[in-house]
């Protein structure tokens, strides 16, 4: 019998809904409940690496700013290693740097912000060409049936980006949707990464 292989099936996704903040960012919903909430500041004072700010907005198919999006980022440390048992690269780990953060686009301005360090380069799949520095982004919200995965690359890493094994599989016309624009501010560099859910500038989303 061919059907004797007993795999389970992944639980189906459902929209996070308009009140996702209650569970994942309660302070934004309007109350505080946990002693140690998760947040959008990834780097502590001791974390090695260049301090950066990542910010942007999320747009719908009519170009309207979406003010209820939940975003998470996941990234390597400055040395290019993920703080995860599945990363077996021989590079240093930074205690206290989890490499993960979560926030919501603001109800008024629609802007999201992360404060972190710039990630280093990570090996590519099966030890192939190293990937350019990037931040993995995942977003969920009302009207999004299954979470959307994308990557943010850095606009000031042209050389590394040119050799990146993921950017290179994407048609040239759309590659730019994954590259954040650097702005130099008083507090240090900010990378502006706007996400378009739909429309002429639709961001590249991945089936990972």
């Amino acid at each position: 019998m061919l059907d004797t292989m007993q795999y389970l099936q992944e639980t189906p996704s459902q929209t996070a809904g308009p009140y996702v903040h209650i569970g994942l960012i309660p302070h934004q919903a309007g109350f505080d409940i946990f002693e140690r909430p998760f947040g959008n500041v990834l780097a502590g004072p001791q974390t090695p690496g260049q301090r950066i700010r990542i910010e942007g907005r999320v747009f719908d198919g009519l170009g309207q700013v979406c003010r209820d999006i939940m975003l998470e980022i996941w990234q390597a440390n400055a040395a290019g290693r993920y703080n995860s048992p599945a990363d077996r690269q021989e590079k240093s780990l930074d205690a206290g740097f989890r490499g993960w953060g979560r926030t919501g686009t603001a109800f008024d301005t629609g802007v999201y912000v992360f404060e972190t360090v710039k990630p280093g380069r990570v090996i590519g799949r099966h030890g192939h060409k190293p990937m350019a520095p990037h931040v993995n982004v995942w977003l969920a919200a009302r009207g999004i049936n299954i979470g959307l995965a994308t990557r943010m690359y850095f606009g000031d890493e042209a050389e590394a980006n040119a050799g990146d094994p993921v950017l290179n599989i994407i048609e040239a016309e759309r590659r730019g949707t994954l590259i954040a624009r650097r702005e130099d501010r008083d507090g240090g560099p900010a990378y502006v990464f706007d996400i378009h859910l739909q429309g002429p500038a639709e961001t590249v989303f991945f089936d990972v």
Partner: protein
Amino acid sequence: MSEQPFEFFQRDRSQQPPAFTPDYKSTTLRSPRLALWSLQNSLSEVTGPVFGQDELGPLDNDLILNYAKNGEPIGERTVVHGRVLDENGRPVPGALVEVWQANAGGRYRHKNDTYLAPIDPNFGGCGRMVTDADGSYRFRTVKPGAYPFRNFVNSWRPAHIHFSLSGSGFAQRLITQMYFEGDPLIPKDAILNTIPDPAARRRLIAALDLNHSIPLDSLAYRFDIVLRGKRATVFENKLEGN
């Protein structure tokens, strides 16, 4: 040893809702229209954040007590429990499970919820926990109420609890909703019906579990969750030019 020890099975999209589902109108302008780019897993997808039990407070999984101010919340006292497994049937220990829900009257504690049912002063409506070594989780709450939402003129959500799951890899990230066995609103729900496969929809309906209810105290429901499975990459060949 390989620096990338495994990769996840390709996601079975037949079990998942498509991005655009016209009967859930909010998807109209928020659904990507171009094909997703299929991306073979690298370390960026197979790794994921680690969460420790020590980061959580002792009441984080007790929605009856974690926002109690001058008494306990009103509603049917309910235990929800289950296991987080992967597609291979293996437990996923250390998974972060976060839940949120409306109160017994169907009202959310949220700035943007204007439904006329009252806020319960003793109910926050969220909780979180990390799965045990065998993938199990449990929390205590009051059963949420149904509520209307703006979709069609007279659209109602069945009672449900939102679940957010973070497994060992970022590619396993999942948000879903759990429903309660026997709710007559379930077959009419535009959001549950975004999932085309009827068997897949049924997997979101938690069964009454009297064996785990607490006599004279709380009912119980069982909800098992499956995250993507993984395979070892030991025989992987190095492709040229990549």
